């Protein structure tokens, strides 16, 4: 009986108290014990190395590519700081941006860009941390980017329109990021209690914000992609995303800008 009451109180607490801290989307400094922090660094390292290898090869072909990656990374970093209202929590949170970046510059380079963005956020915004950088790169950079990119490619191959593929990419990359973060937190913090119970509890704590936020991120990713594709077909082509669409006239929505 006590256990059941505790679970109810816990879920109630999670639903109302945790969303206020949802702006800190990364695992904070000091949360991961040394062995887990080291493990996630070891897991993340090959992906960062892979991304840097890709960067070197592509920038040897075109020296401007490195600048393009840096600037697009910077833009995605700024977008990830944009507040999005989360009505279920009554607060604001912000998108991960990795799905968008994975479509634009590819998943391996997104890992590189994410590792830098995470370091900058840890140093200058107090989001995330240095010892937890490996864990955060894994959840946001690797899992977020690769799942988002895979979803985009698969849905495009299945014949879905670009906007819906971008939408699904945004949604899945966001949810995958948080599922991985929950996994990392649960595996590090479950102690003597059950891992699955802790995983479910942390997952439940993210749900009030992440379900709507993932959908919103999907909508924004679709909006961004739809906005860019027709206007910069040559740059999009240069980044290797896909065949460009014809240039369109400015639409009604653009007037808002």
């Amino acid at each position, binding site marked *: 009986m006590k256990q059941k009451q505790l679970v*109810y109180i816990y879920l109630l607490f999670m639903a109302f108290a945790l969303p206020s801290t949802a702006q800190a989307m990364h695992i904070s400094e000091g949360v991961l014990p040394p062995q887990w922090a080291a493990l996630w660094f070891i897991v993340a390292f090959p992906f960062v190395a892979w991304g840097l290898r890709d960067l070197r090869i592509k920038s040897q072909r075109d020296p401007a590519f490195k600048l393009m990656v840096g600037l697009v990374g910077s833009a995605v970093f700024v977008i990830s700081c944009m507040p999005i209202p989360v009505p279920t929590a009554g607060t604001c949170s912000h998108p991960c941006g990795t799905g968008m970046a994975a479509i634009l510059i590819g998943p391996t380079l997104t890992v*590189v860009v994410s590792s830098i963005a995470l370091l900058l956020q840890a140093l200058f915004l107090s989001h995330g941390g240095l010892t937890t950088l490996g864990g955060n790169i894994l959840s946001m950079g690797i899992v977020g980017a690769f799942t988002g990119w895979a979803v985009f490619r698969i849905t495009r191959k299945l014949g879905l329109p670009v906007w819906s593929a971008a939408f699904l990419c945004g949604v899945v990359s966001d949810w995958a990021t948080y599922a991985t973060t929950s996994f990392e937190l649960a595996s590090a913090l479950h102690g003597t209690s059950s891992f699955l119970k802790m995983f479910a509890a942390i997952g439940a704590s993210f749900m009030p914000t992440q379900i709507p936020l993932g959908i919103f991120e999907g909508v924004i990713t679709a909006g961004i992609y739809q906005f860019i594709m027709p206007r910069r077909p040559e740059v999009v082509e240069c980044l290797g995303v896909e065949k460009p669409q014809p240039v369109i006239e400015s639409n009604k929505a653009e007037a*808002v800008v």
Partner: protein
Amino acid sequence: MSLLSEIFSDLFARQDNVLTRVDPRTKLIVALGALCAMIFSRTPLFPLAVLALCLVATIAVGVPKRLVVLRLAAPLGIASVLLLLQSVMAGTTPLWTLVILGAKITITREGFSGGLLLASRVLGGMSVMLLLSSVTPAHRIFHAMRALGAPEGWVEIAMLMYRYTFVLLDLTAEVVSAQKVRLGYAGMQRGLCSAGLLGGTVILRAMDQAVATNEAMRVRGYNGKIPLGPMPALARCDAWILGGSGVVLAGLFFGTEVLCR
């Protein structure tokens, strides 16, 4: 966005004081050492001592208290939640029992001490990074990272990203103001549409900026690599600071561990 720019800026790191004059490699190694020691500590005393030292140093070098509070607000929230969760979820030995809405909540001794340790590590770690970023400009941190073995391409992208984040933050602030004036965020649907347009505009401007920057750098001899230049050998005083800081950290670490045994 202006608040974000203010927090994100390394303005205070460009002042001239005792800590800004220290070699960035020394500061980086000491900061990493403190962070590692913190996650190895088994008592909250060490992280709390580091927190106190860093806060005093941050305020002493002239960082406004308001900015310190802003930077530590999110970690403080996380620390509180961690303390509460661990107290309720972990451990078996009851410490206090609270009755809320007819349900009993038992705070356990093991959970509370574990939560306190985690919370102190979060706050201590964040204070170390706050101090490091308050006394070292971003480009010097990247330069030091390169000197300590970070890959060249990674450091170049990091420098570019940091530099152009401010340009794009300014642009974002302008576009958001324009959208707000035109009621772009009146209602959920319009807000989401505006957010998509804002994101698209920021990425397009970033692409344009990349093309312009490439042209500008090409005429200055850019061939795909930003020359960082070698760092001078560590000065004797910096080596002493490094050694002294190591001794202080080790003393503090082992002292607090023994004290709590």
